[in-house]
Structure formats: C-alpha cells, structure tokens
C-alpha cells in the first residue's frame, strides 16, 4: 500500500487524519477512529461513516479522489446527493450533519433546479482548498 498520511485542522479546533491510498485512489478523512454504527453513500463517490446514536461523523471517504477535483469547463464539479438511496430514518440524521462542521469543512451543499420541474436535486461540491491547504 502506498499511503499518504497527514493531519488536518478542522474549524471545530479538532484534528482529523487525512489518509490517501495512492494505489487505489481513495482518500479517507478520519474524524474519530473506531467502529461505525451506520454508513451511507452520500454520492456515487463519497461514503460517510457515522455514529448512529450521536449522529456524529466518524469518517468521510472519497472514491477515485484524484478524478473528483478537476474543474469542468463550467466551474467546480457538483455531485448529486443520493438521498433516495438513504433509508427514511437516516435522512433526518444526515442533513444536520452535512450542514455543520466537520462535514461542512469538506463539502458544500447546493441544489440543482432542472428545467420544467419544481423538483430541486440536492448536490454537493468538494471544498478542495481545505483538503490541500490545511495540513496541520
């Protein structure tokens, strides 16, 4: 394994561990080591592990991380949040977590309004500046 490790300072004042598997191109930001009691695919490329009782994030993983960062011709990349894949009881735990640190240090929420529909599709972008510039 070709593992790159460093510490990241969070806006909460705490420190997270940055672990990037260069061979597999998977990045995991670990907020708290230990056993998760729940996890979901936030997007097709982002997995969140968390503590079910405390609704507290444990780690955030980025699959094919190097391919998620390059900007497209229109600006930064937006990824659809897969809320339809989340069981009902999970949604009420995930949305509050997404809206505050530490997840908001790495993900920005947004919405896409397709033409001819009232439906808003939840999206997220990766705050890459935080990942690259915040080494503690």
């Amino acid at each position, binding site marked *: *394994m070709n*593992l790159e490790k460093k510490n990241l300072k969070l806006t909460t004042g705490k420190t997270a561990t940055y*672990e990037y*598997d260069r*061979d*597999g*191109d*998977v990045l*995991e930001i*670990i907020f708290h*080591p*230990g*056993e*998760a*009691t*729940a*996890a*979901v*695919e936030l997007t*097709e*490329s982002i*997995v969140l*592990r968390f503590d*079910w009782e405390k609704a507290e994030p444990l*780690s955030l*993983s980025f*699959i*094919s991380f190097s*391919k*998620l960062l390059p900007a497209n011709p229109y600006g930064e*990349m937006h990824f659809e949040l897969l809320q*339809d*894949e*989340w*069981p009902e*009881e*999970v949604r009420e735990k995930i949305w509050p977590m997404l809206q505050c640190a530490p997840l908001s240090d790495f993900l920005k929420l947004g919405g896409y309004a397709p033409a001819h529909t009232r439906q808003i599709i939840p999206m997220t972008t990766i705050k890459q500046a935080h990942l690259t510039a915040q080494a503690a």
Partner: protein
Amino acid sequence: MRKWFVHDSDGREIYLTEEQWEHIKSRHPELGNHLDDVLNTVRRGKRRQQPQDPQAFVYRLRCDKLRTPFNGILVVVAFRFELQANNGNMIPNDFVVSAWGIMMRH
C-alpha cells in the same frame, strides 16, 4: 501479499491482499468479522463503473449478517494493468481497494 482471489459476475479475477484487508479492518472495524461477506460482494454484487473514473468499479450487495442498521456492503475495486515478467505482455491487475458496511434501500 495477494491472498484471496474471487471472480466477479463477469468472470474477472479480483484479488485482495492481506495488507489491504488489515487496513480495511482497522479503518472500518464494523467489517472485521465479515471477510467472506466482502469477498461475496465482489463475487455476486451489482457492479457500477465510477462515472469519473473508468478504472474504478463499485460492487454493492445486500447483506443481512451485519449488525443493524447496516444491511449491505460496498467494495471498491481498481481495474489496472501490470507487465507480465516472462513475456512483457500487459495483463489485468484488478484488486480490492476498500470496503464499507452501508445502509441501502435498493
């Protein structure tokens, strides 16, 4: 060391190294006793090519053996190539990168 070998539903041989499995267990201890279920996810799971990375595939399969509320496993496999030592040919080098217990609806 390449320790476990399985074939996915398309017949591709995919391996998991001992080092990678130790890493998965230490980072995702909720999967610690589920090596067979992780391998079975590659064997029988539904495969999805990653939209931004044609060389990465996600395998997902329901699994009722995990502690609730987990009900499925997700495995990331890298599809790479390596040079064959004896003849210089490029051959597939497909390996498990990581795995997660997940909660899924479908």
